[in-house]
Structures are given as C-alpha cells and as structure tokens.
C-alpha cells in the first residue's frame, strides 16, 4: 500500500464533495493544517496523528501544534540541508482518541503523502497506528504513549519511541526522587500512591510498587481516582496513612483536584511528588494550584533547561498558539526533532531511507532533558530518561540528574 | 366429578383491597358451551386470567382434565389443552394471518427450526374452516376487528385445545361476521370441544350456551340454562342494577320485572322481532316513574325552552374508532336539559362515544357543536374552556396526589384564585365527606370516595355540561345511590349531564332523555318516560332481538 501520486488525496476528495454538499458548511470554515497534502512538492511530509477532538482533544491539539512548530522552525532555519533546503510539511489527522481510527488515520496520512508519522498519545490508538505504519512501511516516531507493550510485545521495524515508557518513568522516579530527598538530609520511608485508574496510572503504579521497596520505601496507601471525580475521600485516606511522600500519577485535572482537596483539609505531606504527571510541568496549572505544589518533585519527560533552544521553543510555542507548554508538548516536540534529524540524515523523503536513518541515528541536539536519543532493536530509546524536577517559584526546574540540572534542589 | 373438564374450587383473587374473585367454584362439563355473564367489574376477566395462569390466585384450586393446574404458567396450561382468547383481540400484528397461526407452540424434536408440514396443513385447514384464507398473507394489523377475532379463535384452535375460554369473542364485530363466529363456535362444539364464553351480547349467549353462570361482585350468583338465568331477578339486578330504594316503589318494580322476565323469556323463545325506537310505551311501573318524576321534579319544568336557555351539545353523524376498527358508526346525540343517559351493553361503544364528544378520541367524520362553537376538531382541555368536562371511567383521579390537590387541579383552567377557592368551598359543602380527607392521597380513598372526588374535581371546573362515564361501575350497591345523588347535584346546580351507565334501573330513575347504543349504532332515542316498560328495555339492552 505505497503512495500513489496519481491518486487524489482521500481527504481532499471528500472535502470537495463536502464543500459542495449539505455538510459542507464547516468545510469552508476553519483552518486546515494539512491543506497541501499532495506529494508533488520536493518537500518532506510528516503525518501527525493525534486526538484533536474527544476527551483527549485538548492535549492532542497541543501536541499536534508542537509538531507544526518543530517543522516551522526547521523551515525558517532553511529547511532540510541535505535536501537543498527542502521544506517540511506537516499534515494532521484527528484520531479522536479512538482505537478504530488510529490505523485509519495513519493510512490516510500515508495516502495523503506522509513520509514519516508521529503520534498518538493514547496507547491503544498508538498501537493501531503503529501497525498501520508497519504495514505501509512508513516509519513512525511515537510522540507520547506510555504503554510498554506497544514496542516490546510487537515485532515492529518501523516504529520508534524516544520517550521513556511507563516502566522507565517509574524506575527513574524511584531512583532519582528518594536519592534527591535523602541527599538533602531528609528521611523518606513511606509513600502513598495516588493514581488515575486507567492503563497509564495502573502501569506506573505497578512499577512503582515494585521499585519503591528497593529504595527502602514502603507503600502505605494506594488510592485511585476516576475521571471527573472529586478526591476529598482519597486525601483523607492518604492523611490517615501519614506517608512521607505522596506520589501523584495523574493528568492535569486530577492533580488539581488532589491539590484542592489537600488544601481543603489543610493537609500537606512532607513531600509531594508526581510521576509522569503532566500538571507539574504545566505552568498555568502550577499557577492555579499555587503554594501547595511549591517544592513538589516530579519525574517526567521534560525540557532540557541547560539547552537555550528549549526555552526559546517554549516561549515561541506559548506565543504562537497561546497554549501551555507541558511535558507532553515538550516530548512531542523532541520526537519531531528526532524525525527531522532522521530526514536530514537520510537526505531523502523516501520512507525506507528515513527508517534506515532512524535505525542508526543518534540525536544529541534535542530539547528534551535526556542523553542523546538512539534506538535499540525494539525501537525503544536506549537512553530514555525522565529527569527529576522541582517546582520552584511555580516553575518547573530540573534538579537531577546533574548533567541536566538547572537549579539546586530546595527542600 | 370426572364429567367436569374444568373445575375450580373456591378460587379467590384479590387486588389490594379489591376482591375480584370471591371464592368461585365452577364446574364446566365436557362438551358443553358454558356462558359466563355478569356486569362490568363482576370479575369475569379476572376469573379467566386466574384460571389460565395469567394471575396467581390467592386461594383455591383449578383442575383441568383432572389435573391440578393451579400454579402452572399460562403457557403450560395452554399446552395442556386449555386455550383462551383475550377481551381485546391480540393478534401478533406484525405477522401475517398465516404466520399468526403458525406461531402457536408445537413441541417436538427441533422445535426450533422447521415448521412441520402437518402444522402448515393444519393452519391451512383452519384458515379455510374460518373462511379467512383470502387474508392469509395480510398482516394482522391490516385486518378488521372481526377478522382479528376470527384469527384469534383460529390461532387458539391451532393448539387443538379440548377446552377454549373465549373472552367476548364478538365484541365489536359486525352482525354478519358475528353470525359467522357463532356458527363456527357451534360447529366446533359439535366436534366435541368445550367452550367457556364471556359475552355481553345475550343473543350470542342465548343461541350458543348450554349453561350459564352469572357473576356479580366476584361471586357466582346463579347458574342454569339461559332461559332460567335471564328470567332470574338476580340476573336483572346484576345487569340493570339493584333497586335499592324501597320507598320509590321497589315492590312494584320487582313485581313488574318478574312478570317482565317471563315475557323476556318468551320473547327469546319466540325470537320476537320487536326492535328499538318503537316509540313510547306507557308506564307499567308506577314506582319507577314516580322516582323518575321526583328526581327530575325541579328540572323538568323548563324542558320546553332548553335551547334558548342553555348551551347544548349537538353531535351529528359521528364515526370514530381505534386504528382500523370502527367503534361508533354514524351516531347523532344531543345533550338535553337535565340528565341524558346513554345505555348499551358492553362493547357497544358508549365510552368511545363519550370520549369522542369530549375530544379525547378524534372523530373520523361528522360534526360536534357545543352551543355556537364547532368543537369537532377541539380537544379535551380546550373543551373545558367552553364549559364541558368529562369524568372518565373509574373516576380517573390522581392517586398520588392528595384530595385537595385533586380538587385544585380540577380548577386548573381557572385563573382566578378566589374563584377557585370559592368553588372549593362549594364542592366541600356539597361533599362534606371529602373535607375530612383533604390531605389523604387520592389513591387511599375507597371506591365511592374516589368517585365523589372525581365529581368534586369536575365541579371545580365550573362546567355547564358534564359527561359521566359509568360513575357507578364497581361500586357497592349502597354507594350507587350516592353516585346518582351526586349526579343530581350537578343538575340541581344548573348543569346538563350526559351519563353513560350500565346501572340502568337506577339511572332511569333520574334520566330525562335516553339513548340506547348497541354495536356502535343508535337503537333508541327518546324521553326517559318512553322507556319505562322494562321488558322493552331489557330487550333493547340485552340485545334480544
């Protein structure tokens, strides 16, 4: 199912029908990021497969914007050098966070001329998209998707993941967080885990429950939160267990709920941390959570603060899209950088060339706080790292490991 | 004992307070056609439902073919050979007539899949036998009410039951088809099938039944052959209502009716063709006449100039029904000064006519005027603004609302709060019994009180015309009088009343004008005085032609 440039783009075809027909009213409104889907330019096309609507639509849209921004900046810098300044096009598809659409959108993007894919946030969707990419022989670099199994239980040759998966994130947290606390001269012996009761929360929880005892930390309470729940009860439960540290594994809303409930009960654990918690490096979320999160520690993929470019990108993003730049956005941006580096390396828009390049690549110039990115035979990033950062003055500051630390830990 | 194919012993069924079947012991002999008659609410259908397993009895036993079937499910009883039909024909509407027949349960290997040839052949036979083969491929929803009754009979015949219980098999069926149904039943009975029939149409019962049981108030009051049953006063009481007021000349009435019974029996035997509308007959029962006169004493005066004084409801050539089932055929009625009664056997279309008048059932053709207003296309709540209100059968009160709320809702279309309050006082003055119950839930009232509430609620509307649908139905005899008193109260307050009643004797006492309806058509119209010959009334009413 390769590309066929004679074939009219599926999306455009329908769009014309739609514009002419009764359902066309919306076809005229709104922007189309992937307007020029045809593969007749000399450029390279990145297909961005994210949830732009549905429950995950907010985050998905920001991730999609990160892909756009990475391409935009590269184009402003003169395009792909090895291809005589060829421009990068980004075409976007909305997978709605639905498993059924993951593969479909990937196929559509490939049909519309994508030479390389990225996506998809929700793990089942990523999984379906990865398979579609594999069968189309188009490389895919996962933007964000934590499920270990996507790569590790599939035999995929075209799929790569720069980001640390759930297991890695938990391991990093269990490694870095207690060490940092103890180095600062504090005791930490017990922990309570607060997790969102979906796959991501459960898998990080499971790994933490394995890893924390290795660090002599006993998990004394585990409480879950569902979407749309208030968590006063959970906070009382945690408070009764009186742990040294409360580890929150949750999305933004649930983290805010946790903090709100803690405030309401005047409860402040010795340490509040987050593992793979997007809220703790979302500055607007930090602002609304206020003092309670000041000093909170978190492990997540994050911007490399030692890299000036990272700060620029963050600023540019906030200015361009008027949206907050959280960890998911950062990781997506970094993944797109990996893609761009691979295109540069391949010097070609041919998916197979790009794939070959990805196989051997080592990307050191990226904005994520992790060592140079390179992939093992399953496609996982060998050097994936979730650094430890701390909320200082309501901004996320990386404090460990040392090579990425921008600031001293302050407890 | 063993000659009884179906036998119940002390069968009881209660619904909350209501005792529907009060210890019924009945034996149906093999091969007979056993009629069950009785007024509405006497417990006939409940008896059927309890016998055939649709209701769980509260006591007593049912034996069929010598086996105790008391606690079997309805399908098991049906398969055991005791078939039944329903009062409202219930064909499987989305299936064709033939499929309806084929849907009858047959056991056997692979009872899931193939329809055996014998079954198809059997269905074919029944279709031919009942002469409905020409509509075999029509969907059951598309055939007429009478055809549906035949279909229902055919469907139950597919089960090859030894005994069939028929619940009003000719209700709403036109006379031609009715005759055919009777013929078929006769033929089937000759083949040896036992029938138990609930029927209001005495012409059906008379020709068909070997024995008749009369139910009243959940008990069998009488059993015997048709002639002896219909000539029994208890049966007349059951049907026409008890005459409870001795002062109004009960003795005379009884006297008259006894002699009349004989006459009725004779009439039946002779098949006398005397029909309705034959004009006035001079009163034979002075008592009834007196009662009537006294009841309408205050009101009978202005009869002459009714039209100028009061608005009148005039319905011309009404045709209506449900679905494709015509219930009322070309009937014209008017409201008269005082009380206008509409009598007629069950299924004659009385209630439907009333609902058509008030606008709850749309009319298919014809016109209705109230005063100068054409209300043919109007509906119930608009008609209230014109000043007419209807009391539905069983009162239609709001069981979960208190008495006071019920009454206040009667004044729903009265915007002026003080008017509402005044009327409430009036109603409470008229029905002091309600005053004590103001805060009780409507549903907690007794039947009589509920009816009183319904009257009171209707009075709250301030209407000038009241349409009453069998207000005395299901009430204890002692309360029936109260209901008629209440009805007279309405008239005394200057309103007109159209009263649908089955309690004919009582109603006649207060009636000023009478219509008699049968089979959806008008059989008689005239002043009440013309109907005082009870024999004629019985003939008209029971449809003994």
């Amino acid at each position, binding site marked *: 199912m390769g590309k066929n440039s004679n074939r009219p783009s599926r999306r455009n075809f329908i769009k014309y029908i739609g514009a002419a027909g009764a359902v066309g009213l919306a076809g005229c409104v709104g922007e189309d990021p992937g307007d020029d889907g045809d593969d007749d330019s000399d450029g390279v096309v990145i297909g961005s497969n994210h949830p732009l*609507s*549905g*429950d*995950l*639509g*907010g*985050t998905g*849209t920001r991730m999609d914007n990160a892909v756009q921004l990475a391409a935009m900046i590269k184009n402003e810098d003169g395009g792909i050098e090895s291809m005589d300044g060829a421009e990068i096009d980004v075409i976007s598809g909305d997978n709605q966070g639905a498993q059924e659409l993951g593969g479909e959108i990937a196929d559509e993007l490939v049909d519309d001329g994508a030479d390389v894919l990225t996506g998809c946030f929700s793990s089942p969707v990523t999984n379906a998209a990865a398979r579609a990419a594999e069968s189309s022989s188009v490389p895919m670099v996962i933007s964000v998707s934590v499920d270990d199994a996507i790569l590790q239980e599939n035999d995929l040759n075209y799929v790569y993941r720069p980001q640390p998966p759930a297991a890695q994130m938990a391991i990093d947290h269990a490694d870095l967080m207690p060490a940092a606390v103890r180095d600062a001269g504090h005791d930490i012996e017990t922990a309570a885990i607060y997790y969102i*009761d979906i796959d991501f929360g459960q898998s990080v929880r499971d790994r933490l429950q394995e890893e924390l005892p290795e660090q002599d930390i006993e998990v004394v309470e*585990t*409480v*879950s939160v*569902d*979407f*749309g729940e*208030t968590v*006063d*009860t*959970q906070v*009382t*439960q945690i408070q*009764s267990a009186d742990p040294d540290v409360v580890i929150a594994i949750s999305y*933004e*809303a649930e983290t*805010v*709920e946790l903090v*709100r*409930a803690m*405030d*309401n*009960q*005047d409860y402040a654990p010795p340490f509040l941390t987050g593992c793979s918690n997007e809220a703790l490096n979302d500055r607007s979320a930090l602002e*609304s959570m206020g003092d309670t999160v000041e000093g909170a520690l978190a492990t997540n993929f994050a911007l490399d603060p030692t890299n000036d470019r990272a700060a620029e990108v963050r600023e540019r993003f906030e200015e361009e899209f008027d949206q907050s730049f959280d960890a998911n956005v950062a990781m997506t941006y970094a993944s797109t950088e990996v893609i761009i580096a691979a295109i540069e390396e391949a010097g070609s828009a041919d998916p197979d060339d790009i794939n070959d390049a990805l196989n051997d690549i080592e990307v050191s110039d990226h904005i994520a706080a992790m060592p140079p990115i390179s992939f093992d035979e399953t496609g996982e990033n060998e050097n994936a790292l979730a650094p430890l950062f701390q909320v200082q003055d309501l901004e996320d500051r990386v404090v460990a490991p040392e090579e990425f630390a921008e600031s001293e830990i302050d407890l | 004992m063993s000659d009884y194919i179906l036998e119940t012993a002390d069968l009881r069924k209660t619904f909350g307070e209501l005792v529907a079947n009060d210890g019924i012991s009945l034996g149906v002999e093999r091969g007979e056609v056993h009629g069950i008659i009785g007024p509405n609410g006497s417990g006939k259908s409940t008896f059927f439902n309890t016998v055939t397993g649709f209701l769980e009895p509260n006591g007593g036993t049912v034996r069929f073919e010598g086996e105790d079937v008391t606690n079997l499910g309805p399908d098991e009883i049906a398969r055991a050979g005791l078939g039944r039909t329903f009062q409202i024909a219930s064909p499987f509407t989305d299936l064709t007539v033939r499929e309806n027949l084929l849907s009858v349960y047959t056991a056997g290997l692979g009872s899931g899949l193939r329809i055996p040839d014998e079954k198809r052949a059997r269905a074919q036979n029944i279709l031919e036998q009942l002469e409905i083969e020409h509509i075999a491929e029509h969907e059951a929803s598309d055939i007429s009410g009478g055809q549906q009754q035949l279909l229902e009979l055919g469907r139950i015949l597919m089960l090859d039951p030894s005994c069939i219980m028929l619940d009003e098999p000719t209700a709403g069926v036109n006379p031609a088809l009715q005759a055919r149904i009777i013929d078929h039943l006769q033929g089937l009975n000759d083949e040896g099938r036992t029938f138990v029939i609930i029927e209001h149409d005495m012409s059906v019962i008379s020709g068909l039944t070997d024995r008749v049981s009369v139910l009243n108030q959940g008990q069998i009051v009488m059993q015997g052959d048709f002639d002896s049953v219909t000539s029994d006063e208890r049966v007349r009481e059951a049907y026409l209502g008890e005459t409870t007021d001795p002062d109004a000349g009960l003795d005379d009435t009884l006297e008259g009716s006894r002699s009349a019974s004989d006459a009725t029996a004779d009439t039946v035997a002779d098949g006398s063709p005397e029909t309705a509308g034959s004009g006035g007959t001079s009163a034979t029962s002075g008592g009834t006449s007196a009662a009537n006169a006294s009841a309408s004493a205050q009101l009978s005066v202005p009869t002459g100039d009714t039209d100028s004084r009061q608005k009148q409801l005039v319905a011309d050539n009404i045709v209506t029904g449900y679905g494709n089932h015509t219930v009322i055929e070309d009937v014209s009625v008017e409201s008269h000064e005082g009380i206008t009664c509409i009598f007629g056997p069950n299924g004659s279309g009385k209630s439907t006519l009333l609902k058509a008048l*008030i606008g*709850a059932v749309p009319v298919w053709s014809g016109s209705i005027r109230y005063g100068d207003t054409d209300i043919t296309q109007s*509906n*119930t*709540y608009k008609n*209230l*603004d014109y000043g007419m*209100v*209807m009391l*539905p059968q069983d009162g*239609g*009160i*709001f*069981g*979960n*609302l208190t008495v006071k*709320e*019920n009454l*206040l*809702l*009667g*004044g*729903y*279309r009265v915007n002026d709060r003080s008017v509402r309050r005044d009327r409430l006082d009036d109603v409470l003055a008229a029905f002091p019994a309600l005053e004590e119950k103001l805060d009780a839930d409507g549903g907690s009232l007794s039947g009589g009180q509920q009816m009183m509430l319904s009257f009171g*609620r*209707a009075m709250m*509307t301030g209407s000038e015309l009241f349409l009453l649908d069998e207000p005395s139905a299901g009430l204890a005899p002692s309360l029936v009088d109260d209901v008629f008193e209440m009805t007279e109260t309405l008239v005394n307050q200057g309103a007109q009343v159209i009263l649908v009643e089955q309690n004919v004797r009582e109603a006649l006492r207060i009636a000023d004008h009478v219509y008699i309806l049968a089979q959806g058509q008008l059989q008689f119209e005239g002043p009440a005085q013309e109907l005082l010959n009870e024999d004629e009334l019985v003939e008209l009413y029971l449809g003994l032609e």
Partner: protein
Amino acid sequence: MDPSTALQYVAFAILLGGIYGLVALGLTMIFGVMDVINFAHGALMVVGMYIVWWGTNELGLSLFLTIPIAVIALFVLGVGIHLSTIAPIIDSSQENQLIVTFGVLLIIVSAIEIVFSADPQRLEFGLGSVQFAGVYLPLGQLYALIIAVLAVIIAWAFLQYTQLGRAIRGTADNRDAAQYVGINVPRIDYLTFGFGAALAGLAGAVIPLFQSIDPHLGDAYLINAFVIVVLGGLGSFPGALIGGMIIGFVHVFGQVFLPGSGYQIAIFLIFILVLLLKPSGLLGGDVHE
C-alpha cells in the same frame, strides 16, 4: 479507622450525595412524567458548567448572576430540545427516544468541545473549606449541597403548591386523567423537559464551585444518576435526594474499603439488586406498565 476520620468520610459522603441527588433531580422529573430516559442529561449539565465558568471567569460576572443565567438558559434549551426532537416521538418506541437523546448528547458535547476545547477548565478562585467539629467541609461542595437542598425544597414546593406543579405531578400520575381536568399534556411535557433541563443546568452550574470541568464531565455523573433515579423511585424528588445520599455513601466508603473502582462495582450491584427486588425504587409506588 478512628472516629474523627470516620466522621470525615460521613461528611464527604453527605456532600457527595447532595451533588448526586441534585444531578438526579432533573432526570427523575423527565423520567417520571414522560417516561423518557434522557441520555442528554449529562450534556445539559455540561452546558450549565460552561455557562458558569465562562460567565464568571471570562466575563467577570458574579456567581449570583451566572448560576441563575445557566438555569434559565438551560430551561430554554430544554424546551427547544423537547419541541424539536422529543415531542415528535413521545409515543414512539423507547429505543428511538434513546437514540435521539444520544444524538443530542453528541451534538452538545462536541459543540462545547469545539468552542471551549477539551482541556479542563476551572474557576480562578478556590473557595477553601471550613472546619467544624474536627471535620473539614470544603465550601464549594457545601454551597453545592445547600443549593441542592434549596433546589429540592423549591422544586418540591413548586410541584406541591402551584397549580402548574400539581399539573405536572398529575400528568406524571395519570396522563389520561390529566387531559380530563383540562391539562394540556403536550405543554406539560415541554415544560417538564424544560424544568428537567434547568435542574440539570443547576447541577452543572454548581459543579465548577468545587471541581475542574471538561466537556465530558457529564458522563461521569450520568450513569450514577440513572442508578439514583431508579433507586429513589421514578419521579420522586425526595427519592432522588435519598438515592443520591445512598450512592454518596457507597461511593465514599467503597473508595475507602475497596480497591480501584471497586466502589463503582458496588454501586452497580446495589442497582441490579434494587431493580430485581423493587424495580419501583425505594420510595416508588407500583411500577406502571
């Protein structure tokens, strides 16, 4: 569990139960009067949430203004939805009604998502909490509970003491009889749907006081609201509040004693049990067929 903690849980259960009851109010009204399962109820709540959030945060209006606006707006929206989609099929099969209200849900939620994005939103100010007898009472929830109780009282009084309210109850009780006392039943239907929607709007309107909102938040409440409606008895307002309290307690104590979403399993088991043993609900009368 020490007594003060237990007391704290009880407090949370009551607070949560109040919200649940409020959410179920509008649903039980529509269910009781019209016998329609309104799947769009959660979506209507979401509209209420966004009106309050948007009016308060973006337009800077007072909560005292935005909450009533939400209620009124939802009433109008409810009447519109009823007249355009429910009324034509009020006598149709329930599966058709279900699909139609589901369609309304899709439209509303998607529209909100398009306008406001799927990102969670919250009011800029937190309301904090008060401590009473060693028990923390988050003010957001407390206000919501007070509003819920007030709403129940007002709605109950409205139904109890006004002619229109009686007409609505009368229609729920006996649709047939209602027309005979002159009640315009179709009008009562759309008013009921409007009131039901307004109550959904009110439930939605108080939620931003204590919780982040997003376009899909209605779903989280809706399923349990169904449970409450059946639990309390169709159309019963006190039943909705009591059912809400029961579910509040099961939720909170299930959360404490059961792992993961075990509390939700408990809620469904109770639901199934009640359905089987007393389908008319704890406070319901007989089930009308």
